[in-house]
């Protein structure tokens, strides 16, 4: 279902997957489609989010303990939304987090209310865990398109006669601007490359 949602999304914004073109998916293009902006905030916490939202003139309810540390935060005021990610994370992690928040906006907008706060320490209940898994799957599917993974594996195999997963993960991680760990996990799931 997530794969179909993303395929539709790509079609809507005209982002056709072309294996001949190299480089990362332009994630930044997807945010305006959902009236969404993204901000990287150092030491992300409820307090920092509130500060930012008030500064922008938003009327907000009590969001809880200002000291509560966050991994991400998604806020909607009417149809416009803001995704907050932690600026202290490495670039690839920040990008994945942004895609993850976009995933929530696409998949869970109806069920999430005005905001969705994600804690650093995962103590989510079953429903939340399901949502988190879906948002992660969305981010992985969007940033690491299956077609590209398979095509690059094919290229490696035809050019060099081998496609070790570790090597492919390294190359693709830098091309697609994701972490090596995320890439490795994705290739395992897709069963692309050999051990």
């Amino acid at each position, binding site marked *: 279902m997530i794969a179909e949602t993303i395929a539709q999304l790509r079609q809507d914004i005209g982002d056709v997957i072309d294996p001949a073109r190299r480089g990362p998916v332009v994630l930044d293009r997807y945010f305006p489609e959902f009236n969404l902006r993204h901000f990287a905030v150092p030491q992300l916490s409820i307090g920092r989010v509130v500060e930012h939202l008030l500064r922008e003139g938003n009327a907000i309810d009590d969001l809880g303990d200002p000291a509560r540390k966050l991994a991400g935060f998604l806020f909607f005021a009417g149809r416009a939304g803001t995704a907050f990610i932690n600026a202290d994370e490495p*670039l690839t992690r920040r990008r994945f987090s942004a895609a993850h928040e976009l995933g929530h906006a696409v998949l869970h907008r109806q069920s999430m209310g005005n905001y969705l706060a994600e804690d650093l320490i995962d103590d989510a209940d079953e429903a939340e865990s399901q949502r988190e898994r879906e948002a992660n799957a969305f981010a992985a599917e969007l940033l690491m398109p299956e077609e590209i993974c398979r095509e690059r594996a094919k290229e490696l195999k035809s050019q060099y006669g081998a496609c070790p997963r*570790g090597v492919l993960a390294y*190359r693709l991680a830098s091309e697609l601007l994701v972490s090596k760990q995320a890439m490795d996990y994705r290739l395992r799931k897709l069963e692309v490359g050999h051990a």
Partner: protein
Amino acid sequence: MRDGTAADRFFRTYQAQFVGATPVQPFVPPPDADDESTEEATPQIDRTVEMPEAYWKAIALTEQPANENEIPKRFIDGSQKGEPVLCIRSPQGYPIPMVLSEVGAVALESVGRTFERKFVALERVLTFYADPFPWEEVEALSLDLLNRPELKLRILPAAPPDFSKHSPFDYEAMRSQAHNRAQREMEMMERLALASAKDVPTLVDGPIHRVTSKPGAKLLVGVVKTHPTNYLHDQGWRTLLNLKPGQRTPVFRYESGGTGGGNLPVATWYLKLAGGPRLAPNWGYVRVEVPWGQFVERGKDFGFIDRLSRWLIDARCRASSYARMPVSLEPIVRAEEALKPLFTPTGLLANRLHRTAGLTEMEWE
């Protein structure tokens, strides 16, 4: 003329300046772990494999020739050629070098008395510590540089230096991290070279864990020229420093506790390739590695170690014009020679990048 591309905007926003291969400053930080390394646990060394530690002594090699399955047929070498070509300033003001490199690997196979090139891979990369920059700008830059036919540059985001040891304003620390990341890319190409013919007995320039964590059944030999790690006890050092050409130390077993050694146990020993009155005692020897599993498969046969060592001595480089001759093997020197001419001169690539960035010497001087 500025063309308003993503690369142009990025370089302009972050005040790109020309830099070159300036001499390394007096304080050079040690390479920090990159993003793929984890904390090293205590390595495990067993120096009693061949004889008790206290009785270590030099072992003279047999003249017996190696069997067909005891010598490598394929030789893998990797290389990285690059230098900082631009320095950008992060939003916090950190000076961040962008290192433009070509990285590659080659595999030669011995066919009769000659070597044939069986594998070659070469790529251009631009390495820098990218974390301080907005991801959407790096995303756009990456797409731009990779799809320009004259450049085809893949961005490699380098890991940060250890900020508990280095200031983020330390240019050398940033440069070192970029260099390490490009080096890692070169190792990936060496891995690919090995994977492309795993059933051929192979020798690699460097430690084995760099090219595989799961060696196949066929012979794999690593020859290490540099020795930053201390594996020896005092008697081991005395033995090593007294080795004469054609002698080796006893075999010991080494297993790294972390990813640095890839948790791949090896049978290893030092072998003196060259010596003479004008060579310092810490020069002229290499450390040889064979996967421990392969050594056990061969019944922990020290005769095999001797015969392989003898073959290595015979294969040593004899060209006195070659600076690293005392620690080099002829097939690896040949591999290097096969790879180097394929590199594009860095100055040429740097010019193309500068043009892409809309930079000209006059504009920025």
